[in-house]
Structure formats: C-alpha cells, structure tokens
C-alpha cells in the first residue's frame, strides 16, 4: 500500500499521477529475471503485487527504465510445511496467507496480522515478499518475520543465500536485498506447542498504516516483542522483553513499559509525535502482555 507522505520539500511540484514511460518484461522464470537484473542493474525494478510500487510509479517518485513482472513465476507462490519450517513463497498474496489453515496453525502471529493490512482488494494483490522488500517501517509483516526469527531466501545469478530477518532490515526502506537479487521464499519456524502470539496495532482508520503496532510472540525460548511504526525499521524491544523474562505479572508489565524508553526512540510522523508514539507503544505493550498472560 501507498507509503510516501510527501514530506520532502521538492524543487518541483509536478502533481503527476500517470506513470513515466518504461519497458516491460513479463518474466516466466527466475533465470530471465536474473538476466534482466544483471543487464539493467538499478534501472530495473521488480514488479510483484505492485501495491506500493505502482503508486510510487504513478507519482513518478520512482522512474525505472524497466519493470520486471515476476507475477507469472508460479514457483514463487505457495505455502507448505518443510520440517520445522513453514515456507511461504515470496509471491504469495496476503489474502492467501490470511486464508491458509497452515499459517493459522503454524504461524498464528502472521494469521493475526494479515487482516490489519490495508483492505480486501489490496490484500488480493499485495505479496508477502513484496511487503518485506518494501520494508516500510510501519508495515505489519516485517515486524512479524522479525518476531518469528524467519529466514528470507534471496536469489540472484550469483546464487542463493539465506538471510535472517534480523539481518534483512537495515534502515528506512533499506534491506539486505542486493540490486540483482529477488526474494524467493520466507521460512518461518513453526510455532511449537504452547506458543502464544499477540498482534496489536493502532491505526487512525481501518487498514491505514499503524501509528504504532506490536508483534509479540512468547515461546519457550523467550518472549519476542517487535514494534513497528516507531522507527526506520521494525524494532525489537529487548529491554522490555527482558523485564518480562521471569514471567508476566502486573508489576513486571509496568517495569517493561518503563524499560521501553530504552528500546524505542520513535520519530514523529504526520499522525503523532515521538512522545505520543512511545506512550502508545507502552499501552500496546501492556495490552499484549495481559493478553499473553491470559492466553
């Protein structure tokens, strides 16, 4: 979905909403994608669901010479269990992920998160991998994969590599994805028995990007708290999580809320300043912790 709050003062005000000219490649295999990326480098953009890229193209915030449409590559879609991992193809649409019983059972955090993404028509088109590649700091899925310690599979003509979610998100809209690489799939560790997941967010309107959101996953190995909408990428709240490590009680929740100031230093945006965001993050932390207690 659309991100660009046009905060940056532009030297021109063109007010355009027709995409600039570009060439179009309908890729039917990854090999074709790699060739095109190798040839055109940063002049090329990958078109997956397009729900963030196309608005940016229409506004001419991005003016690639070539659009490589990977939608026809069937190998990039699908959801399956592979041992201890749930594999989600990068091109799998949000609506398919949301409707998948496998995801509901094995990655309940993601299942809870999907309905918060935009609206039905957007979810029918937007893709799991596309959302991660876009790396919007207020988006739901980057926070989920970080909370779940998921592994992203990246491929290029140079070969394949696996990158942990922790290493993937680097800065504002910046990821470990090299210009010649494509995300092919995401492996999510299957939730063991007794896992408790809570996904909460506060958005001004249904489907808007969150002012603040929290993906919380409690597993035997520990509690993961990942906030989004509070920084230039999803932020893991280690101090707050540590405050709850010995078990969740009302006192520890208060301590964790206090500790959150060490984890987060949210920049303001159009909807709220940093102080408001920190406050709301504390509220969400309290609510998520109480829900985990009850779960």
């Amino acid at each position: 979905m659309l991100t660009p709050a046009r905060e940056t003062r532009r030297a021109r005000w063109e007010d355009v909403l027709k995409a600039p000219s570009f060439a179009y490649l309908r890729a039917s295999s990854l090999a074709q994608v790699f060739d095109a990326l190798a040839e055109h480098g940063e002049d090329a953009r990958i078109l997956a669901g397009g729900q963030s890229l196309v608005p940016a193209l229409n506004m001419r915030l991005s003016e690639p010479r070539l659009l490589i449409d990977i939608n026809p590559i069937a190998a990039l879609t699908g959801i399956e269990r592979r041992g201890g991992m749930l594999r989600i193809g990068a091109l799998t649409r949000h609506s398919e992920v949301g409707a998948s019983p496998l995801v509901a059972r094995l990655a309940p955090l993601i299942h809870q998160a999907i309905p918060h993404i935009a609206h039905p028509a957007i979810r029918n088109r937007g893709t799991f991998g596309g959302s991660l590649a876009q790396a919007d700091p207020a988006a739901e899925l980057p926070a989920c994969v970080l909370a779940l310690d998921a592994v992203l599979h990246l491929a290029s003509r140079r070969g394949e590599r696996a990158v942990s979610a922790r290493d993937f998100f680097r800065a504002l809209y910046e990821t470990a994805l090299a210009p010649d690489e494509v995300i092919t799939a995401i492996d999510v560790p299957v939730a063991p028995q007794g896992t408790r997941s809570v996904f909460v967010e506060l958005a001004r309107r249904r489907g808007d990007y969150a002012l603040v959101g929290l993906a919380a996953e409690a597993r035997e190995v520990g509690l993961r708290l990942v906030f989004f909408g509070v920084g230039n990428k999803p932020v893991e709240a280690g101090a707050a999580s540590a405050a709850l490590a010995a078990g969740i009680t009302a006192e520890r929740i208060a301590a964790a809320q206090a500790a959150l100031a060490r984890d987060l230093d949210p920049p303001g945006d159009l909807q709220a300043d940093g102080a408001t965001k920190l406050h709301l993050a504390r509220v969400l932390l309290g609510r998520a912790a109480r829900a985990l207690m009850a779960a």
Partner: protein
Amino acid sequence: MSESVDIRLTVNGQAVARRVAARQSLVDFLREELGLTGTRAGCEHGVCGACTLRLDGAIVRACLLFAAQLDGASIETIEGLSRSGEIADLQAAFHQHNALQCGFCTAGILVAAAALLRRGGVPSRAEIRDFLSGNYCRCTGYHAIIDAVEATCRARAGKSAP
C-alpha cells in the same frame, strides 16, 4: 522487453487483443481503449476504491495494475456484472435504500460488496463496514450502503430483516 506490449485477455467474457503502452494503467486501458467508463479513476494511487474490479475472480484496484500485466487474464467490470445479472439484487437494494448519491464511487462499492456477498452468510454491520473500509464515498455517509448490503445478504441467505 519493450515500451509497448501485446496482450490478449477476456473482458466481461469477451476476448480482447490490443497493443498497449507498458505504462498504461488498467483503469486507463478500460476507459480509454475499451470505452468501459464505469470503472473510475478517483485517486490513481490505490486509496479511494472507485476503480475496484474483478481480476480472475478476485477484487483488485485497477489503478495499481498495468494493462501490460494482463495477458491471459479475465477481467469483470461493473458493465459485465450488470449485464450478467449477478448483482441485480444488490443494485436493486442500492436503489431502494438510495445507497448512492453522485454515483462516482458506486461501481467500485458494488464490485467490492459483491465479493462479500460471494462469501455467503449474513455478516454483521460492523463486518460489512470493515469489508468496505477501502471504498471512499463522500455523499451518503455510508449508512444506506451498509443497509443495502445487509439487506441483500439477508435476502440471499433467505432470512428476513430482524
């Protein structure tokens, strides 16, 4: 790899073949090339929902797709859904409840609501509001739209109003 692309697709059941500029959006393609003006460009950045249509059976935003992507696809627009009679009851309910004023957003809302209807059952008013949360209407205040969708759901489920 070219700035113009040959596509063959089905639009409202009819086979269409065209050469399109790669940058032409689906909504512009339908309006400019095929004269299907019922799908409307309200914001061209994926927010207002006026260009909602069906692509291979699922609702999508036509301003966030390029026509070039649609080789082999099947598109259904408000014109097709009207002609097939699939949403005749929904349209009648909208008429009865005056769930439209200027009519600019209406096609998008009908196509979106039709997707909810296809799920079956009788959703709550809150669920209807939620499902239509991505379709902007400035005239009606939404209340009558929810009434009309709710009435159609009930009628299809064979239940009368409570």
